[in-house]
């Protein structure tokens, strides 16, 4: 049996109730906190020992981020839960909320306690309105039960969670832009330093964590760091991971697996294998901002370090699978259409560079390509690294890897003066 941690209360077609979450050991950690079992420093130490890395895409160690809040930092302090999940191919945060919302709520309270925050903001994209409504209802239940609000469970710790819906733009998922969005400003990214943990919302220390990261906390505290590390299939990894599988497989969906599960096993055993008539050509292993990963790496262990050792990124662990009948120039053009449209426009390399790349790809895909576009695309993919935030280099990843691994396919388009594949209908 596969260990199910975040999805242990998963029910067919319904949401786990607060009572069911409590029945599985939920809110026990919060009770321990209220009884004084853990200091904020204890929580940071235990989560640090467990090796929990951020699940939003960057993989930064969670406890290290928390501990970068200065000891003498100002109050009030804030926590922001990032559920502005807009990376194409990714839907794990939505699944998490629809499976067991209270593991996330308890996780937020624990993180808030670890950084001595008094308030948290739950920031969610507008297309997840059903998830937002579930959370609003369950937050109220948690409040009624005394898990949120003033003097939680009779302790002297007070903490509440406020939900805000995003107005809807990809940039809002970038941590510093998210803070601007929450403050009602145009969500431009901001270049640290100062880091949000020093000067975040209204210049107060603020920690931004992905919701999957937060949902892990109750389980780490309940079962200990050794248990958590033992869940992983890699030596350096820790915990389980929510993998979203989409594209040309038989059973697209979101599964919780030990981090480090080999890619081949995920596709063949947990996504029902490739569809009849489809052969694996490539996949995006961690969302639209990662590089195409080819057949020769199918046995790679899906973990942060093992992927970076072979030049790839785990990203959001959203695996989109392409088959031999799919035109990767067409896919890349689609991805760049997304990135160009979603560019916030704040800095020139991204605002001007991405549409330029998109237009060159459009010409190649539509039979107007020229050989000289290939070095131009390579140059542009490097140039967007001068952008202000990390989203533009992310956008360049599929372009750069298309030219690295599928240059022949690009040249074929140029030589034939048309796309050699049939368009998806």
């Amino acid at each position, binding site marked *: 049996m596969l260990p199910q941690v975040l999805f242990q209360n998963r029910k067919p077609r319904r949401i786990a109730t607060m009572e069911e979450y409590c029945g599985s050991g939920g809110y026990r950690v919060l009770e321990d906190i209220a009884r004084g079992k853990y200091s904020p420093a204890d929580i940071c130490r235990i989560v640090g020992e467990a090796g929990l890395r951020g699940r939003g895409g960057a993989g930064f160690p969670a406890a290290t981020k928390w501990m970068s809040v200065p000891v003498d930092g100002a109050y009030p302090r804030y926590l922001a839960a990032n559920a502005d*999940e*807009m*990376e*194409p*191919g*990714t*839907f794990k*945060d*939505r699944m998490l909320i629809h499976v067991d919302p209270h593991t996330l709520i308890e996780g937020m309270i624990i993180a808030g306690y670890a950084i001595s925050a008094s*308030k948290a903001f739950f920031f969610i*994209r*507008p*297309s*997840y*309105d*059903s998830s937002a409504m579930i959370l609003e209802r369950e937050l109220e239940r948690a409040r009624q039960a005394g898990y949120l609000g003033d003097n939680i469970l009779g302790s002297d710790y007070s903490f509440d969670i406020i939900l*805000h*819906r*995003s*107005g*809807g*733009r*990809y940039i809002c998922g970038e941590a510093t832009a998210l803070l601007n*969005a*929450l*403050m*009602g*400003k*145009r*969500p431009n990214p901001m270049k640290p330093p100062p880091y949000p943990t020093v000067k975040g*919302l*209204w210049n107060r220390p603020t920690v931004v964590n992905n919701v999957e990261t937060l949902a892990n906390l109750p389980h780490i505290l309940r079962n200990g760091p050794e248990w958590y590390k033992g869940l992983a299939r890699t030596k350096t990894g820790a915990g389980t991971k929510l993998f*979203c*599988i*989409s*594209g*040309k497989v038989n059973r*697209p*969906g*979101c599964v919780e697996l030990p981090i480090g599960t080999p890619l081949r096993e995920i596709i063949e055993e947990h996504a029902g294998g490739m569809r009849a008539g489809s052969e694996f050509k490539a996949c*995006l292993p961690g969302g*639209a901002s990662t590089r195409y990963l080819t057949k020769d790496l199918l046995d790679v262990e899906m973990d942060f370090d093992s992927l970076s050792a072979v030049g790839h990124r785990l990203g959001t662990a*959203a695996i*989109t699978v*392409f088959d031999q009948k*799919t035109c990767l120039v067409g*896919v890349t053009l*689609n*991805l760049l*259409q*997304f990135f160009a*449209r*979603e560019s*916030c426009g704040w800095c020139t390399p991204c605002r001007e560079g991405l549409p330029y790349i998109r237009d060159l790809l459009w010409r190649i895909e539509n039979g107007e390509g020229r050989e000289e576009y290939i070095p131009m695309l390579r140059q542009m993919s490097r140039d967007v690294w001068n952008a202000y935030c990390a989203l533009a280099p992310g956008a360049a990843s599929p372009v750069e890897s298309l030219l690295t691994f599928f240059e022949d396919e690009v040249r074929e388009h140029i030589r034939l003066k048309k796309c050699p594949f049939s*368009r*998806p*209908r």
Partner: protein
Amino acid sequence: MIPEALKRELLERTARAEHPREMAVDVMYALQGYYGYMSDEAMEEAAEIVGMTPLELEELATFYDFIYRRPVGRYVIRVCDSAVCWMEGYQSVVDHLTSRLGIGLGDTTADGLFSLIPVCCIGYCDRAPAMLINRKVYGELTPEKIDRILQKLATGKPAAGEE
């Protein structure tokens, strides 16, 4: 003008916020829910509630995808056009919708019932191709399924044979 009760509720929520601007998008959503879109009048009312100038609020209204500064239909159909849906039949979904509704992308039907716009990945890649109508998501779309959805919305009644 929005109803007094709604205004009072929004002012109360704004007073509880860390800073009035924190409520800027929430207040726009509330007014948009009432008016259908953010008219100039709605922008002025919203700006007053959150203590911003209409121009400051405009900077947000025109930035965000889910705030409408022009009238839209009662049902806003947003078809996902990102990579997975694109591979799984986005084009047939759009072709079917445009022919059924008799409008192009970005347009609204003459009866003011439906608007049709493309949207970037809505996070339902496991149920591609997918679309969002107002707050509700519909996945695994086929022409028949789209017809049933449209009929239900247009008449307020489900099609024959459907619950």
